[in-house]
C-alpha cells in the first residue's frame, strides 16, 4: 500500500520533470537554414570528390605500374562528380543525410535478406561432478530452501544450463530478447523473455516481461557468465539460486559523468521467496547502482538493493518435511565489484574482485507458528587471469540465521548452532572468447555434514555472441 503511494508520488515527480519545458538549442532562422544547406551541399560535393580520389589511388596501388608513390598527384580539386541526389531539404536539416552520403556498393555495411533475423545464440554447458556425499541431501540449517536450492549440484554427467537466446532490436524504440533453457526436470523453460525500450527521453529505460531482477550483480547475469559454476550460498539460501520473475522494471540513469542509476521493479512474485499474492503483483524492488573508473587500470561498480515479497501458503521441502510459510520477506543486498587490468587492457592479465552482502528479515507464520527471523549472508571472490586464456579463482561464502522466534528447535528453521559456509576454487582455460573449460573444487560445509565436490565443465557459445556485461 505504502509502496503504491510512493510509486505514485514518484511518478508524479518524474512526469513533472518530463513535462517541464526543456530549453531548445539556439533558435534557427531561415537564413541560417539556407546557409546550412549550402554548407552541407559543399561537404557532400567534397565527399564525392574524396571518394573518387580514393578510388583512383587504390587503382594505382593495385596496378603494377612502377610509378613511385611520391610522384602521385592528387586528383582534380574541382568537384566534377555531382553530389548524390538529396532528399527533401525544405523542412529541417535533420532529414538524414546519412543515406545520401554512403553508397551501398562501396561501403562496409552490406545489407542482406537475413539481416533482419534475430541474433541467435546458443550456449552449451556440460558438467561432470563428483561429490563424496549425496549432493541431494543438502539442507542449510536455519533456512527454508526453494526447490532448485535443495542440492549442491548433480552427481555425474549433466548438461546444466544449456540454452538458446534470440534477440534483436524490434524497431527504433524497442529491443527484445527470448532465452529458452532446458531445466533438469525436462521440458523447455522460458528463462527470460522481455522487451526493453532503447530510446526513451531523459535516460529512462523500461523493461517488461520475464527477466532476471536487477537486485544483485550476479543475479542479473546468466549462469553461464558466472565465474563459478554454482550460486554463492546467500543466493542459494535466500533467492533459490537466482531471481527471475515476470513484471516491469524502470531504470533511470543520471546525466552525470559518474555512473549513477536508479531502478524499481514490480514483479508477479511467485518465485521464491514469494508466492503470487496481491492479485499477481506480489513483489517489489528498488535499487541504486553507482560506478566509474578510478584510473585507466581500475574500475568499480557498487549497488544497493531492497526487495520485498509476500508469500501465501508457500511450501518448501527440507529433505523429508514439508514446511508452509505465510508472511513477508524483506531482503537487502549490497554489492561491490572491482576490476583491474594493466592500462585497462584485460587481454593479457586482469583481476576481478566481487562481494555481495545479504540481509533478510522474515515475518509471518511458519508451520502454524508465529515467526520473526533474521538472516544474513555474504560471499567474496577473486578471479585472476594470470596469462591469456588462463584464470584462477577463489571464493568464500557463508550464511547465518538466528533461530527464529518463538521456538523452532528441531525444525527447518533451527540453525543447530551451525554457520553454513563453503570454500571454492576454480581453474579456467578459454580456447577462445567463445569456449571455456573449468575445474571447480568445493569444500561445502553448508549442511551439518561437510561435502566435497569436484566439477569438470565446458561452457561454449555458438552463433551470435551477446556483448558482455561489466
Amino acid at each position, binding site marked *: 500500500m505504502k509502496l503504491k503511494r510512493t510509486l505514485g508520488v514518484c511518478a508524479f515527480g518524474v512526469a513533472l520533470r518530463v513535462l517541464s519545458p526543456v530549453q531548445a538549442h539556439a533558435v534557427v532562422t531561415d537564413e541560417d537554414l539556407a546557409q546550412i544547406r549550402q554548407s552541407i551541399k559543399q*561537404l557532400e560535393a567534397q565527399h564525392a570528390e574524396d571518394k573518387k580520389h580514393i578510388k583512383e589511388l587504390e587503382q594505382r596501388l593495385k596496378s603494377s605500374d612502377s610509378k613511385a608513390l611520391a610522384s602521385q598527384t592528387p586528383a582534380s580539386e574541382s568537384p566534377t562528380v555531382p553530389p548524390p541526389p538529396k532528399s527533401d531539404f525544405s523542412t529541417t536539416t535533420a532529414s538524414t543525410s546519412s543515406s545520401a552520403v554512403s553508397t551501398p556498393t562501396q561501403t562496409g555495411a552490406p545489407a542482406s535478406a537475413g539481416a533482419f533475423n534475430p541474433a541467435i545464440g546458443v550456449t552449451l554447458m556440460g558438467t561432470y561432478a563428483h561429490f563424496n556425499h549425496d549432493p541431494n541431501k543438502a539442507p542449510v540449517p536455519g533456512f527454508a530452501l526453494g526447490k532448485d536450492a535443495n542440492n549442491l549440484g548433480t552427481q555425474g554427467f549433466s548438461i546444466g544450463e544449456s540454452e538458446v537466446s534470440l534477440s534483436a532490436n524490434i524497431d527504433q524504440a524497442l529491443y527484445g530478447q527470448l532465452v529458452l533453457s532446458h531445466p533438469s526436470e525436462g521440458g523447455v523453460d522460458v528463462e527470460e523473455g522481455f522487451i526493453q525500450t532503447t530510446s526513451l527521453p531523459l535516460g529512462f529505460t523500461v523493461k517488461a516481461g520475464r527477466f532476471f531482477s536487477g537486485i544483485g550483480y550476479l543475479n542479473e547475469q546468466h549462469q553461464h557468465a558466472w565465474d563459478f559454476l554454482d550460486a554463492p550460498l546467500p543466493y542459494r539460501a535466500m533467492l533459490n539460486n537466482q531471481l527471475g520473475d515476470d513484471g516491469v522494471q524502470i531504470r533511470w540513469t543520471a546525466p552525470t559523468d559518474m555512473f549513477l542509476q536508479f531502478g524499481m521493479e514490480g514483479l508477479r512474485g511467485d518465485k521464491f521467496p514469494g508466492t503470487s499474492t496481491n492479485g499477481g503483483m506480489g513483489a517489489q524492488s528498488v535499487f541504486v547502482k553507482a560506478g566509474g573508473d578510478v584510473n585507466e587500470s581500475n574500475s568499480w561498480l557498487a549497488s544497493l538493493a531492497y526487495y520485498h515479497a509476500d508469500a501465501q501458503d508457500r511450501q518448501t521441502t527440507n529433505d523429508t518435511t514439508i514446511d508452509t510459510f505465510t508472511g513477508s520477506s524483506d531482503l537487502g543486498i549490497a554489492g561491490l565489484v572491482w576490476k583491474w587490468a594493466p592500462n585497462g587492457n584485460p587481454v593479457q592479465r586482469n583481476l576481478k574482485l566481487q562481494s555481495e552482502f545479504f540481509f533478510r528479515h522474515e515475518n509471518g507464520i511458519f508451520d502454524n507458528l508465529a515467526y520473526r527471523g533474521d538472516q544474513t549472508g555474504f560471499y567474496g571472490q577473486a578471479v585472476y587471469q594470470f596469462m591469456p586464456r588462463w584464470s584462477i579463482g577463489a571464493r568464500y561464502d557463508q550464511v547465518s540465521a538466528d533461530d527464529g522466534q518463538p521456538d523452532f528447535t528441531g525444525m527447518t528453521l533451527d540453525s543447530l548452532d551451525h554457520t553454513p559456509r563453503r570454500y571454492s576454487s576454480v581453474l579456467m582455460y578459454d580456447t577462445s572468447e567463445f569456449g571455456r573449460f573449468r575445474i571447480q573444487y568445493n569444500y561445502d560445509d553448508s549442511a551439518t555434514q561437510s561435502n566435497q565436490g569436484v566439477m569438470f565443465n565446458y561452457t561454449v557459445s555458438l552463433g551470435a555472441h551477446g556483448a558482455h556485461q561489466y
Partner: protein
Amino acid sequence: MNKLLICAALVSVLFFTASPVKAAINIFACEPEWGALATEIGGDAVSVYVASTGRQDPHQIQARPSLIARARSADLAFCTGAELEVGWMPVVLRQAANGKIQPGSPGYLEAASVVRMKDVPQHLDRAEGDVHAAGNPHIQTDPHNFLPVANLLAVRLAEIDPANAATYKTRHDAFITKWKAAIQKWETEAAPLKGAPIAVQHKNWIYLLDWLQLKEIVALEPKPGVPPSSGYLAEVLAKVKVSPVKMTIRATYEDERPSQWLQQNAGVPAVELPFTVGGSDKAKDLFGLFDDTVDQLVKGVRP
C-alpha cells in the same frame, strides 16, 4: 520510509542535474582515432570523450559503468563499426538507452560505412579465428580512409548541431587541406618501404600494407586472435629463413613476446607501431600517429 527517500533523491537529481543544456555537442568516440578526428572537425564546438585508449585492444573493451554514463549524455556516438565493437558497444548502447545515439539515428556514426572494406570473408566460420563479416575493421591505418570519414562526420555534425554548421565546414576544409599535404609528405618519406617484405603479429595492418605497398610474408598468429603456440612459431621461423623479412610489426596493445622471440631467434627486428592516437608518445594526434608510424617503418627497413 527508505523507499520515499530514494524516490525523493531520484526526483531531486532529475531536477538539479538534467536542466542545464550544455553548449558543446557531446561526442562519444569508441576509439582514439575517431576522438582525434572529432576534435579536428569539431574544435571548441564539441566535447569529446574517448572510450578506449591506444594501449587497449579495441575488440576487448569492457562495458564499464563509466562508458554507460558517458553514452547516456552523448549527442553523437562515433565508432568504427564493422563489428569491431560488437563485444561491448551493444551493451553500452542498450544500458545507456540514449535515443540520440542508437543505431539508425543521426547521432550514431560508423566510420566503416564510408570506407571500402578489405578482407571481407567469403564464408564465415569461427574456426578461422576472429573474423569480421563486414571485413577487416582496422581502417585507421591508412590515412586516405580519414578523408571520407571526416566528410561523413562534418555532414553529421552539421545535421545534429545546425547552429555550428559553418564552423564544421570551415574546420573540415582546413583539415582536408592539411591532411592531403601530410599524406603527400608521408608517401614521399615512405618511398623506400615499397615492396618491403615484413611479418605482422595480427592481421590488423591490411590497410597500412596496401597503402605503403608493404608485402606481408607471414603472420605470427596462426589465425586472427589466436595466440601462437611454440610449434607454430617454429613454422614461422622456418618460413622467414626461406623468405627473409625486414621486421615484425605489432600494435602497442599486443603481447610483445612472439615478435621478440622472432627477434631473438631470427634477428628480425620487432617494431612496435602506435596503431592509433595515444599508442606511442609521439602519436599525440592524427598527424603524430602517421609521422611516428612512417618514421618507425622507415627506420625498420634501413639496413
